[in-house]
């Protein structure tokens, strides 16, 4: 038990015990804390996972899913600071107030929340599209006069400061 291999093995074993004890405690905690007996509990830590199912249980409590790094990243969605300005209705997207005129906004422009950035025409009515947040235009996602669906991203804005 003095060579490095067996030390590693021992450490691994200890790690396994600790990790699994944690997992089991989690499962038991979840099962006990749930308002009704759960039908399935699944907890995973790295390569270790514990999963419990109950027959015909009503609620489902799943702890962790496919690959959740539990302690590493506090903000899973924070990877991209950019925000989309989306289409408030289905219609045709126009970047300019009229034919031959210059676009409301261009890449690199700074826009304020509430500023008009485009028009969407639906049923021959012109609907103003406003930025719902301030920021710098980093990308125009739809070409002029193209049809857009409801909620389709039109522009990407980056935060005005910081970076």
């Amino acid at each position, binding site marked *: 038990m003095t060579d490095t291999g067996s030390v590693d093995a021992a450490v691994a074993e200890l790690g396994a015990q600790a990790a699994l004890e944690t997992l089991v405690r989690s499962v038991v905690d979840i099962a006990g804390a749930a308002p009704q007996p759960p039908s399935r509990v699944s907890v995973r830590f790295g390569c270790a996972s514990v999963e419990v199912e109950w027959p015909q249980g009503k609620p489902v409590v799943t702890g962790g899913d496919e690959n959740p790094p539990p302690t590493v990243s506090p903000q899973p969605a924070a990877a991209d600071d950019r925000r989309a300005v989306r289409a408030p209705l289905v219609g045709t997207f126009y970047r300019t107030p009229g034919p031959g005129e210059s676009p409301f906004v261009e890449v690199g422009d700074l826009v304020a929340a509430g500023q008009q950035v485009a028009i969407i025409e639906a049923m021959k009515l012109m609907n103003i599209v406003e930025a719902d947040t301030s920021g710098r235009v980093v990308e125009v996602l739809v070409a002029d006069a193209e049809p857009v669906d*409801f909620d389709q991203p039109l522009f990407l804005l980056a935060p005005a400061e910081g970076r």
Partner: protein
Amino acid sequence: MTGFDTVLVANRGEIALRVVRTCREMAIRSVVAYSTADRDSAAVRAADASVQIGPAAPQRSYNYAPAVIEAALRTGAQAVHPGYGFLSEDPDFAEICARNGLVFVGPAPEVMARLSDKALARTMMAEAGLPVLPGTGQPVTGRAEVVAAARRIGLPLIIKAAAGGGGRGMTVVRRPDQLLSAYRSTRAAARIGFGDDRVYLERYWERARHVEVQVLADGHGSVVHLGERDCSVQRRRQKLVEESPAPGLRPDVARRLAEYAVAGARSAGYTGAGTFEFLVDGDEVAFIEVNCRIQVEHPVTEARTGIDIVREQLTIAAGAPLSVRQEDVRPSGVAVECRVNAEDPDRDFAPCPGRLDEFVPPAGPFVRVDTGVHQGWRVPSEYDSLLAKVIVWAPDRAGALARMDSALREFRVSGPGVHTTVSLLRRVLADPEFRAARHTTSLLDPVRDEG
């Protein structure tokens, strides 16, 4: 066959998929207009194209005409199939379609406008020779008018809030001394409930059955009926079980109903698929209303006649004549439909949307299931709670009821918090009154009496 290359389906759920299927068979391109809640729906998957027209809230998507029209125009659709519910019976929407060069799959806007005004429809149909329920037709005000109307109509009668619906705002009056207090309390309740205290009076039929006749009418003067459906099993005016033929209905009465429906459709200048609803008590019948759209229970008629009603709708809308003459329509056997809703019987049938961890509908000989959901789907809370329609056919009623019960037993639906009406439906199927076809519309909802 039809002149349409592309049809916009302005609906969701099972009926949107239903329309997509017939379009595909007819080699018509289908485009489904959908809300964000229906992004992964079966109809969207099955359609040739789709347009996201708005958020989950129907008033900004399925009920929002500009978004629907925009989707139709953008995708090159020549026609709009409205399904049922939402914009399907909105004459203004039909009008907007026409103004935008789109064929609305349904009757002409002016026909729809007249028939959707219940008082006007009642008058029109009475003039066309259809029997109507004795009643005031219009709202009545003042004790003298109420007493006079009641004397003319006779007892029992029902006082209905003009703004009511879905079984709310109604009181049954059986004795003369109940009349005025019922009038006062119904008005008061209507004022509070609907902000509108107008009420009208109608004869109340104690043991009535709800029987409706399916008609098809083209733009070339042909009107045919496809037989009747009995939809008497209701819970708060929601149909649960529909069947054809109407069990226990005297053949001469069934024939009269069909003739009334054809005469009514003719006199109204109706085109498309439509349904004439009647109350029936023994050999007494009374017209109630016309539904100017495809109905949830249309598969019952399809199963007995072999006719694809959506195909006929599209054919008629494209200006072509009906594919069948009256003598070609030979319904056979018995068809029954049960509506399986996501509702909790233990919580007064409150809708219970949620994720369907398991959803395996029944199948097999003479069993059809129309559904817009699938395993893994999360039933949205914004829409009605219909999960699936189970339709069976058999040579006779006993066989059809056994088959239906067997199909319902086979249905596997589960998910966190998901409950269905399957057990209620199975109780109805086992009910002796129902089995003997002695049931009425009050099988599940004994009507509240005054006094």
